[in-house]
């Protein structure tokens, strides 16, 4: 049965909404495949506004890979703004894809990529607009399989009721494998309905189907255990790891939107994973081991991507880009290639050392030296030791001195507030640090034209990290410390005007904390918030702390119990049956090391294995260069 485009019904609504172009599709390099030629059809969603969702790498990669697969098609959908939502409800227009403007409910799989938990209410909006029952148990064979991925899917329990399935880790291979299972099941005439296909997916060991697991609780509310409730379902579900990124050089054809988006550049992942061991960093824990893309593949991807897109900026992405074993040659090679042109290069995640300034200098050959960003994360030496982010004050000052000396005028420093064991004095230390940064800059340049911006947000303990047992700091304390820090910066006559201060207050972090470490009982709160009008919780103008607290209170759920309570070693955590490869004992020891007084752990890329457990559990290994190869100049056609 063919599916008609909803566009004729959508079109009359477009003149009435803000930025209508975001609903129109037709991006360069987008694909609309013939509906009837495909047997497995995916609707991929990034659960935020188009301007945020379109550049998302995960969605772009899966979109391209699935569309390359014969017999499979993939289209994209994004969260519609409340003005459009109201018009769609009034006109009876369901959630649509921007490619073929097809109704999401007509697809076989509705895949949602959660980078953050704050997209959960947008999932409910999309399901409801699509006409898909919110609760998985109420869905019929006419509904798509609702499948979550992305970093937040490493603990999908708070949205378990709304999901049919979740996958952990890299999506490339598992998306193809899932397509294959569905194709086979459909070719057999879809025997046993959705339960059968979910069972087949679960049996692979790589797809988590929440309803096949029962959660049992202790009288005090903690989890007793999580157990499969039918045969053929594994007790643990493992994450997926793509080995050899050179074999998966996506996106090859980046989507180029007409609408303005948050990242107007071509991004290439230069490696996946990070083993620096920062204890707060969920991404660094769940994406191990480090797998580098080779310098030549990176060079080819940049050349092809620029040609395909017409972008004039390239971002070299990873969790700590300066750590690529051949980053120096990559930077020099790309800077040489694009010298004198109007292509700019950027390295979003960087570390604090002089080498990084050399890289930044290479990257700014074509442009101005405006700002450099460093992330010491903790304000005091002690704090940085607790989080295992070993940057000394001396390193930092030496680095910024070099930066200012070489023509950089602005340094941005990122910090977190509310880290385990933190005291007021640790946060106030940020003010001293910022002043020393400006002082060094003035000395170095002999000018008062140097600036420093302090950016700080509340720390949220995340699953699968050593801090998964930690008590989250309450928002009153976070806000008090932020006020103290602000006052300390502003009141300084000599340096105050040279220091900018940006912060996120503590309340949204508490909601993020509830959703990050929540269990299935939190689902009722998400639903209540959504029913009360909660949308776009990642946007301060839409977020309402009070709405969340009221919904929690009405559901009889104690937010403090989920957020500011420290867990003990043997408590069953809601995500313990979901395996990121990390040895639980190692995580616990690392947590103890953080709050004890032990030496830092070093990066296992260059020092011996520190036994986090990922490689032996997942059958993976670190893949790094150097390859010894260099980038050649592009031949002029």
């Amino acid at each position, binding site marked *: 049965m063919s599916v008609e485009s909803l566009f004729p019904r959508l079109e*009359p609504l477009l003149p009435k909404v803000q930025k*209508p*172009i975001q609903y129109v599709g*037709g991006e360069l390099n987008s694909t609309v495949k013939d509906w009837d030629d495909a047997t497995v059809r995916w609707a991929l969603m990034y659960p935020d506004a188009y301007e945020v969702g379109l550049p998302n790498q995960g969605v772009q990669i899966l979109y391209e890979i699935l569309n390359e697969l014969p017999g499979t098609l993939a289209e994209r959908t994004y969260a519609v703004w409340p003005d459009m939502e109201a018009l769609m409800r009034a006109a009876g227009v369901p959630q649509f894809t921007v490619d073929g403007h097809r109704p999401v409910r007509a697809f076989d799989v509705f895949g949602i990529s959660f980078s953050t938990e704050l997209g959960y209410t947008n999932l409910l909006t999309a399901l409801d607009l699509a006409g898909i029952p919110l609760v998985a148990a109420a869905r019929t064979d006419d509904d798509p399989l609702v499948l979550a991925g992305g970093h937040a899917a490493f603990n999908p329990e708070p949205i378990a009721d709304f999901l049919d399935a979740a996958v952990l880790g890299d999506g490339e291979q598992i998306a193809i494998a899932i397509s294959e299972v569905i194709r086979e099941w459909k070719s057999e005439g879809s025997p046993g309905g959705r339960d059968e296909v979910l069972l087949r997916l679960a049996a692979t060991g790589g797809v988590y189907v929440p309803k096949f697991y029962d959660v049992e609780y202790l009288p005090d509310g903690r989890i007793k255990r999580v157990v499969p409730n039918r045969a053929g379902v594994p007790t643990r579900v493992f994450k997926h790891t793509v080995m050899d990124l050179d074999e998966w050089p996506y996106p090859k054809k980046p989507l180029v939107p*007409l*609408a303005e988006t948050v990242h107007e550049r071509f991004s290439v992942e230069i490696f996946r994973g990070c083993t620096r061991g920062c204890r707060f960093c969920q991404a660094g824990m769940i994406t191990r081991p480090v797998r580098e893309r080779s310098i030549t593949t990176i060079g080819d991807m940049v050349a092809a991507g620029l040609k395909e897109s*017409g972008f*004039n900026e390239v971002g070299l992405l990873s969790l700590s880009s300066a750590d690529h074993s051949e980053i120096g040659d990559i930077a020099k090679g790309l800077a040489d290639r694009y010298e004198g042109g*109007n292509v700019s290069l950027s390295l979003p995640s960087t570390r604090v050392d002089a080498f990084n300034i050399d890289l930044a200098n290479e990257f700014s050959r074509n442009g101005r030296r405006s700002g450099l960003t460093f992330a010491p994360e903790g304000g005091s030496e002690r704090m940085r030791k607790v989080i295992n982010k070993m940057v000394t004050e001396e390193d930092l000052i030496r680095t910024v001195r070099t930066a200012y000396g070489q023509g950089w005028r602005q340094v941005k420093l990122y910090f977190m507030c509310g880290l385990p064991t933190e005291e007021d004095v640790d946060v106030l230390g940020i003010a001293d640090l910022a002043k020393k940064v400006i002082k060094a800059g003035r000395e170095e340049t002999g000018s008062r034209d140097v600036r420093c911006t302090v950016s700080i947000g509340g720390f949220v303990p995340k699953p699968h990290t050593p801090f998964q047992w930690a008590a989250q700091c309450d928002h009153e304390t976070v806000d008090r410390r932020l006020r103290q820090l602000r006052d300390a910066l502003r009141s300084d006559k000599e340096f105050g005007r040279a220091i900018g201060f940006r912060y996120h207050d503590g309340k949204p972090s508490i909601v993020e904390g509830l959703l990050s470490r929540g269990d299935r009982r939190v689902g009722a709160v998400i639903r209540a918030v959504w029913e009360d009008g909660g949308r776009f919780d990642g946007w301060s103008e839409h977020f309402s702390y009070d709405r969340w607290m009221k919904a929690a209170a009405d559901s009889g759920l104690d937010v403090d119990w989920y957020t500011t309570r420290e867990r003990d070693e043997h408590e069953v955590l809601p995500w313990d049956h979901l395996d990121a490869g990390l040895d639980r004992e190692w995580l616990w020891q690392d947590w103890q090391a953080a709050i004890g007084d032990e030496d830092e752990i070093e990066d296992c890329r260059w020092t011996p294995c520190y036994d986090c457990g990922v490689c032996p559990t997942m059958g993976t290994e670190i893949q790094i260069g150097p390859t010894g190869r260099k980038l050649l100049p592009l031949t002029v056609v």
Partner: protein
Amino acid sequence: MVQRLRVRYAKRGRLRFTSHRDITRAVERAVRRADIPVAYSAGFSPHPKISYAGAAPTGVASEAEYLEIGVSRACDPLSLRAELDTSLPSGLDVLDVVEARSGSLADRLEGSMWEVRLPGVEPDAAAKAVEQFLSSERVEVERLTKKGIRRFDARGAVGSLTVGNDMGGAVGAPVMIDDLRTAGQELGPPCVILRMVVRHEIPAVRPDDVLMGLRLVAGFAPPSPPEVTRLAQGPLDAMTGEPTDPFEPDRA
């Protein structure tokens, strides 16, 4: 910069929902993809030398948008036309390219001819409203601008305003020329079509201002959103009062 090329392009179908900023980004990227040797401004952050004249509003289609590209190496207008058209998304279509000879293109764009399709409108009601509008000396309308609500006259800039229907027939007005019908637009259900020539004045009077004028003078309120297309813009012919080809002086 060794040469300036003037480009007429269309904004069609779904692409009418692009904003002017969206179009500038799309053009810059298309120019890079097509390897057009666009000149860049000097200075701290170089910008490609592409300038735009009188962009149609978001949501309004156009057969007559204009931009000018400065290039650092002489280009053949015909090949540039083909390259840029291939490189732009379908719906942003390059119609004509000439080498600039003299003068300012923007100065030549004295007025525009607009077509406004009004689905589901009674022809008689439209004709009556148009008659009342044209017989008024001034029609004060309001528009929300960035600086707040602005009041201005929407009548004075209107050179002509006629009512037709989808079949090209006229309702109490001169017959429309059928071949001027918007290219690339699908045939919808029958509807009333307004056609107007509006002089470019300050403040600019746009078709939606004229529609608001019709509403104010005759309570004329179309049931669904109007589909507006700019058919032409250029110097206004002294005899007919209609826009003529602004590239004429460059073609010599």
